[in-house]
């Protein structure tokens, strides 16, 4: 096998050195009745060229070349080339968790810079080295709030990504953490009155997403006030990191759980992505995940180490703040490089372009279909309600090698024929115009069909 650095002679010599006659002797400890005496029924050994062909073929069957208006927690932004040039260096790609600081300073310093930039962008004081993704980060953030407040019940905004809600439910069930859902109002934002009414002295935290699942910026001030007045914490989930370039971060939050995929991470059919948790300094000892801290060596040279490990499973075992061990380090490095490339000015300009494309699209959709929650501030997503079933419209778009917005029925039955559209800096005006045109067509035909019916019934 081409990955194995041994010749038959090497194996012979080694077996002799060990004092064994055959390779089978190595497996003597395994009771014979369990030993596999046949080949595994898996594909035969393939040449590299065959493997490449196999995946090229799969790629062609996977929407390659389609223009997409999908967002909903996974965003298509341009990935500067140097991200892959740098993360492909073996010293990053094939390194382990940086427990041995003397030969891991590269990874450690880059994580320290990552933590710093996340703090700068979120307005928090500390950030960890990554969590699995935005959904698990949100769940862990809630558990953090539960530990910090000593309360157990949780208020969750219905405008939180539906799959994040599902994941939270899975994590919460067996920990005796009652979840209650707060609905959204006419304006597509969390219904603050409802929140005020339903929050209790048992509420450990309120969990909202902003921009929320509809792309709308929540009224964090109001929500924070209610939460804090009731002794609850505010946990804010951020699914579209690029929004931080132009949207004021939820500085009033106690914990921020974010999905950083937008920062240079490929869509990759849903993963690997990069969750992050950020919070205030005083909460750090309840934080899950790895943390890198600055220190000095014997000679007083600045250096970095993994720190506050007493929170973690390998030290604390069942008393750990979380069971997380392997995280999303290399993806966090992509995010890190992306943040470094765009930086203070570029991130704002990038976000502005997303804003402009989305404003243009929303305005033009509004001329034909109905754009919901129009009055509220939004970033790069918006909800369009059509007369026709969006699935039908979308299948027509597919004919133009376009993927339309995400039909919301599945997650929000009451929204009927609405779908969630997303535009980024990569969405071209002409693509928007084409999509708008097809929606307009659909509206026209439905209308004329209606009129015909009226004709007849008249």
């Amino acid at each position, binding site marked *: 096998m081409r*990955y194995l650095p041994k010749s038959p002679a090497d*194996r012979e010599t080694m077996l002799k050195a060990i004092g*064994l006659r055959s390779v089978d002797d190595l497996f003597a400890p395994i009771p014979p009745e*369990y030993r596999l005496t046949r080949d595994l029924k898996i594909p035969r050994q393939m040449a590299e060229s065959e493997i490449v062909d196999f995946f090229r073929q799969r790629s062609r069957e*996977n929407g390659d070349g389609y223009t997409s208006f*999908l967002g909903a927690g996974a965003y298509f932004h341009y990935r500067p080339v140097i991200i892959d040039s740098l993360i492909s260096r073996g010293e990053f*790609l094939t390194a382990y968790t940086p427990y041995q600081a003397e030969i891991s300073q590269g990874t450690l310093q880059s994580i320290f810079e990552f933590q710093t930039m996340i703090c700068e962008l979120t307005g928090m004081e500390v950030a960890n080295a990554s969590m699995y993704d935005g959904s698990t980060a949100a769940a862990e953030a809630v558990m953090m709030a539960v530990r910090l407040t000593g309360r157990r019940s949780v208020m969750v905004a219905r405008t939180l990504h539906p799959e994040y809600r599902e*994941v939270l439910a899975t994590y919460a069930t067996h920990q005796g953490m009652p979840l209650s859902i707060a609905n959204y109002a006419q304006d597509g934002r969390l219904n603050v009155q409802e929140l005020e009414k339903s929050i209790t002295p048992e509420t450990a935290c309120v969990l909202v997403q902003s921009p929320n699942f509809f792309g709308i910026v929540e009224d964090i001030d109001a929500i924070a006030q209610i939460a804090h007045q009731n002794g609850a914490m505010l946990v804010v989930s951020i699914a579209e990191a690029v929004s931080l370039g132009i949207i004021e971060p939820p500085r009033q939050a106690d914990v921020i759980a974010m999905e950083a995929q937008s920062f240079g991470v490929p869509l990759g059919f849903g993963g690997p992505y990069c969750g992050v948790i950020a919070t205030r300094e005083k909460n750090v000892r309840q934080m899950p995940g790895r943390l890198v801290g600055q220190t000095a060596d014997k000679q007083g040279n600045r250096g970095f180490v993994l720190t506050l490990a007493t929170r973690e499973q390998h030290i604390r075992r069942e008393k750990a703040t979380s069971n997380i061990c392997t995280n999303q*380090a290399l993806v966090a490095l992509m995010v890190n490089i992306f943040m470094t490339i765009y930086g203070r000015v570029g991130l704002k300009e990038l976000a502005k*372009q997303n804003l402009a494309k989305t404003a243009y699209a929303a305005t033009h959709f509004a001329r034909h279909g109905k754009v919901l929650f129009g009055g509220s501030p939004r970033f790069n997503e918006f909800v369009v309600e059509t007369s026709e079933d969006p699935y039908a419209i979308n299948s027509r778009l597919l004919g133009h090698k376009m993927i339309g917005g995400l039909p919301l029925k599945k997650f929000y039955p009451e929204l009927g024929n609405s779908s969630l559209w997303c535009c980024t800096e990569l969405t071209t005006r002409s693509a928007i115009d084409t999509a708008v045109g097809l929606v307009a067509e659909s509206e026209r035909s439905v209308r004329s069909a209606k009129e015909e019916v009226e004709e007849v019934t008249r």
Partner: protein
Amino acid sequence: MKPKTRKATRHVNQNEGLIFEKSSPGKAAWKLPPLDVPEVDPARLLGNAERRDLGNMPEVSEIEIIRHFTRLSTWNYAIDLGMYPLGSCTMKYNPRVNEAVARVEGIANGHPYQPEKISQGALQIMKTLSECLIEITGMDAITLQPAAGAHGEMTGLLMVRAYHQSKGNPRKKVLIPDSAHGTNPATAAMVNYAVENLKSDARGMVDLASLKQQMNEDVAALMLTNPNTLGVFEQQIHEIADILHAKGGLLYMDGANMNALVGKVRPGDFGVDVMHLNLHKTFSTPHGGGGPGSGPVAVNRALEPFLPAPVVVSKPDGTLGFEYNRPHTVGRVRSFYGNFGMFVRALAYIQANGPDGLRETTEDAVLNANYIRKGLEGIYDLPYSTPSMHEVVFSDKLQAKKGVRTMDIAKRLIDYGFHPYTTAFPLIVPGALMIEPTESESKEEMDLFIEAMKSIAEEVEEDPQTVLDAPHSTRVSRLDETAAARKPVLRWKPGN
């Protein structure tokens, strides 16, 4: 002080500050295309939600970024540079073709919500990988959703809980051997099970007597690592399973050590009910400095109904799709479908190996561990003489007499051009030297490792201080971790 080694030398190496220290207003590494739609006024659109200031985010040029991360990278050790004998971590070669195919356009840019009709490629990859892993483990069904091993443990225990629940009683506790990895108890706690320790016998295996005695209807499951963290195969695995099953308990297998079994034995054949795999260990996806990983969970028929949703299914029309309607599911453990990019890499690895390659791989992994064991026996204390599979665990007992502990020897290894072995566990071995070479090491590299370990053992006798002060050849040495934890500095601040 210069170690007597043929493995490494010192060489000039670039220093590099923090990126923030290179920032200066007006530098930029980005450039956006001209806007093809009208400009907008954020203030008008966002009101007071508009952000005005991005604080201390850096402003640097492209070449500075290239140099920054290239220089940083040269401070790291990596598999690409040499042997990484971390026990339990399975630091094997990460094939480059895996990286290439993961970047093929339609695979890298597929959106998780794009219509199934145009997602057949991704679905096919998930299905093929699932089938391979089911065959390799000998189990009946699988979920690819968990993002790492620990996440898989949680998913597995949630299914255990759901299973017992379905029988009317979720039960109270999980048995975990004292040799287990920290994630096992941590996970049990997250799923709200009490952890009960199970002690090992003189051979480093589960003590059957205590198991019998501790097993009862309150026990939901036993979390067993097999081969265990001593690298020892639990020979009475079937008795263990029987004892559990007799009392309605389930056998959870931590599959972190599957690299010792693939193609040679199948957990499904020796009584395991549920187990996780670490694609970033056994199946060659890169560790990337700590992640990402992927922790598929394989189960037997009885547990299949509880798998997280969605699962990949073949539809009547012959195409593939996701099934969300799973009444008994434990629910989602992650958004979308898991770390798909790792599925691609793991499948490419399986294809590159085939049945023969995977078997050879396992054989070489076990051969390597035993070769090292033989080479170091007598020089380092071997607390358990039970035969080793893919890894061997020594203790620092002999060196401790000179006041040299496992961590000191580990640090000294760095001067010899190697990454240290694992020191953190198993807890049943005080001062453990946990060594897993994997199949990826050549005889040459292992001979150098053995030579280095022997030479360090001699140094301990002749000049322990050199070992206690190690490493001597690195940019920085023995960073002050206590200070770091006492007054944590977790981010850069202007004027730091």
